[in-house]
């Protein structure tokens, strides 16, 4: 029985580890400025935890086999209540490992979340509602117009769904879209809102996730570094249509972005 346990525990360990190392399934390729740092720290954590995982499982398998009851030929059991020195050693080692890992990653977290977006960032307001994402650009005046919950008409979509107050001067040039278009290599400031329940704005390739909470306007930022189309998901359970609360992020050149935004403005007039 000891040998069977050893074989099964080792097999499970090596098979699981293989798929991690072979990267058969891995993080989707990153396309934002933050991705490299996050992925690097993921790999560091993965290697350190992987070593602990394999070491612990391999020892467990080996110990149950080596110290199985072999009847009369068993070696004598060592009568011991433990070893204080060893306890102190492994307490210190795990403390250093765990806290050290944490401190290593804190600078990335700080650069993502402790500072506001740069002044010249491209501003996009993202609003989640059951079960769609809407994106609003402030237009040439750089100001988002007022919205009013009483004006909301979810079934009409677009500006009406956001409850845009057309009487407000600042709202005249606001552009509302169902696809998020942004220029490459510019910092994007995202202002996250939700109308009804909590949603979570998740763009896996940008290593970006943040809940959109009713009652709050959460300011975040990210910098796409590759043009292309990327999927946006909702990551927080928001009701029966959660699975299909899907959107697209289109990252284009600055020139294309300007042209696209101008065309949307023209449509509005």
């Amino acid at each position, binding site marked *: 029985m000891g040998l069977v346990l050893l074989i099964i525990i080792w097999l499970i360990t090596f098979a699981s580890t293989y798929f991690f190392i072979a990267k058969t399934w891995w993080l989707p390729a990153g396309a934002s400025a933050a991705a490299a740092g996050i992925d690097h720290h993921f790999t560091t*954590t993965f290697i350190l935890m992987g070593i602990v995982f394999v070491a612990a*499982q391999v020892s*467990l398998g080996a110990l149950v086999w080596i*110290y199985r009851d072999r009847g009369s030929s068993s070696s004598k*059991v060592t009568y011991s209540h433990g070893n204080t020195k060893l306890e102190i050693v492994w307490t210190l080692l795990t403390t250093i490992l765990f806290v050290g890992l944490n401190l290593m990653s804190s600078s990335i977290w700080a650069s993502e979340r402790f500072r506001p977006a740069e002044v010249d960032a491209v501003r996009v307001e993202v609003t989640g509602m059951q079960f769609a994402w809407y994106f609003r650009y402030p237009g040439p005046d750089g100001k988002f117009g007022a919205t009013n919950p009483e004006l909301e008409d979810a*079934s009409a979509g677009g500006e009406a769904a956001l409850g845009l107050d057309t009487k407000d001067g600042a709202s005249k040039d606001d552009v509302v879209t169902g696809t998020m278009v942004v220029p490459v290599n510019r910092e994007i400031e995202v202002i996250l809102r939700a109308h009804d329940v909590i949603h979570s704005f998740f763009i896996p390739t940008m290593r970006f996730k943040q809940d959109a909470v009713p009652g709050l306007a959460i300011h975040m930022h990210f910098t796409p570094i590759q043009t292309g189309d990327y999927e946006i998901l909702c990551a927080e359970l928001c009701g*029966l249509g959660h699975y299909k609360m899907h959107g697209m992020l289109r990252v284009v050149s600055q020139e294309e972005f300007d042209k696209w935004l101008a065309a949307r403005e023209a449509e509005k007039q």
Partner: protein
Amino acid sequence: MATHEFAAQESHAHAAPQGFVRKWVFSLDHKVIGLQYYFLALAAVFVGMFLSLLMRIHLIWPTLALPLLGDIKPETYLTLVTMHGTIMVFFVLTTAPQGGFGNYFLPIQIGAPDMAFPVLNMLSFWTTLLGFIVMIAAFFVAGGAPLHGWTGYAPLSAIQSTGPGEGLGADLWIISIAIFCIGALMGALNFITTTLDMRAKGMTMMRLPLTVWAWFVTAILGLLAFGVLLSAGILLLMDRNLGTSFFVPLVTINGQLTGHKGGSPLLWQHLFWFFGHPEVYIAILPAMGMCSQLLSVFSRKPIFGYKAMVYAILGIGFLGFMVWGHHMFMSGMSPYTAFAFSIMTMGIGVPSAIKTFNWLGTLMRGRIRFTSPMLFAIGFVSLFVSGGISGPFLAQPVLDIQLHDTYFVPAHFHLIMGVASIFGIFAATYYWFPKMFGRMMNESMARWHFWFSFIGTYAIFMPMHYLGMAGMPRRYSQLTEVTYLHGLIPLQKFITYAAFVTIAGQLIFLVNLFWSMFKGKQASDNPWEATTLEWTTATPPPHDNFGGHTPVVHNGPYEYSVPGAPRDYVMQSDPEIGPAH
């Protein structure tokens, strides 16, 4: 350390009941109440498992109509998710290890004739059962059971119009949890008082079996955590029905104003997780205590580092109250607090690692007997390591950006809080069955059950890590709407097939349990040659546990292979083995 007061103990003693109802239904006997809790959890676990089976089937065959349910609509799937989680967490993982085994064995292991408050004990069981009935009733009301997940995040859970199931079903869900909290609070008081006041002479705190330490600390966690959840539940109920706005700001549902304003959705999350994280330890601590006990018994060796184990249990209990914010890194909470919660969370890994080292140290240089309880204890260590190792990923906010709300999270908590705890329950069942029913369970069925469960659960939950890393969000009823998820569907299929096999394996357990109750081999009083007090008394134990006499304790709980002793174990009530040991 204070030993118990005889006077106090006698005042709690009650005469053996006559008649079926007093003996088996409204019983004051902690052993009967323990069995009642156990069978409640057994019923609940099969309900919970059945729901998960339906989820797995729907995920890979989304158009397939299911028996009883017909076509699975997206909201039906979310109902399954919600009720699976809620039933498993409350009525299985909290109920079986603490209410079941804790009730049955804590008094016997400390040498007491019963719990400190037998009437309160009976009430706590009946309250819990009522909670379960109300929970199940949620399936059958108009609109069905709620779809807001076991975490019940507001405003989704706080407004009736956010989706089907958020009407009466959601009210019943909250009421059920509130009732459960009341039962759990009564139980916690009883456990704490019993452990502090009812220990036999000589049973100092540092001679308590680690199982008792685990139940004791679990009870303290329960006392502090369930009160908060109860209050939060009442506030939520008021938001839903009385027009208050504790958790709801100004929101519109489908463009319609709801009349709420000024509340905070994050407040619910803080209150919920202030309960929710200690709850993880409420589920796992008794399994840790159980596993420590069994590794020592079946390695025929004292537990490695008894004191370190006690301090680790206390450390986990203490730190368990300071880490709730790690569930909220992406919630909109201040990123500075995320940093603090992250450090504390990494810190809680330390006592967990100490325990793992000590388990391995206990096996080393022992003489291991591969009984069925031992197999599950070894399986527990393996699963605890596998489930624990993903913790440091999720505990770092930077990595949580990608992993939060993906399958990586259910992979992590199922292995450590679900499966590892269930392995603790299985180990306890195989270990104590002879004491509870006077018969042994069938060993070969038990082994098959172990292999199905051990390999099966790894096959289910290990691939969920891969899904999570690849970006598959949890709680999606269909995987076809997002293009990049299509490539991951084969892995989902594999998981469902593994679930079929694993669930089939659980039927072996069920058969073995009931077959052995009536047909199992007669058990002796101490079939495992173990040292703790429950093995000194008759099988099954008499009404007052020790048949009129009160045990006196002279030794620690894990004296195996003591040099010079006549046999390879010295019982706690045997004459003292001397200061040298």
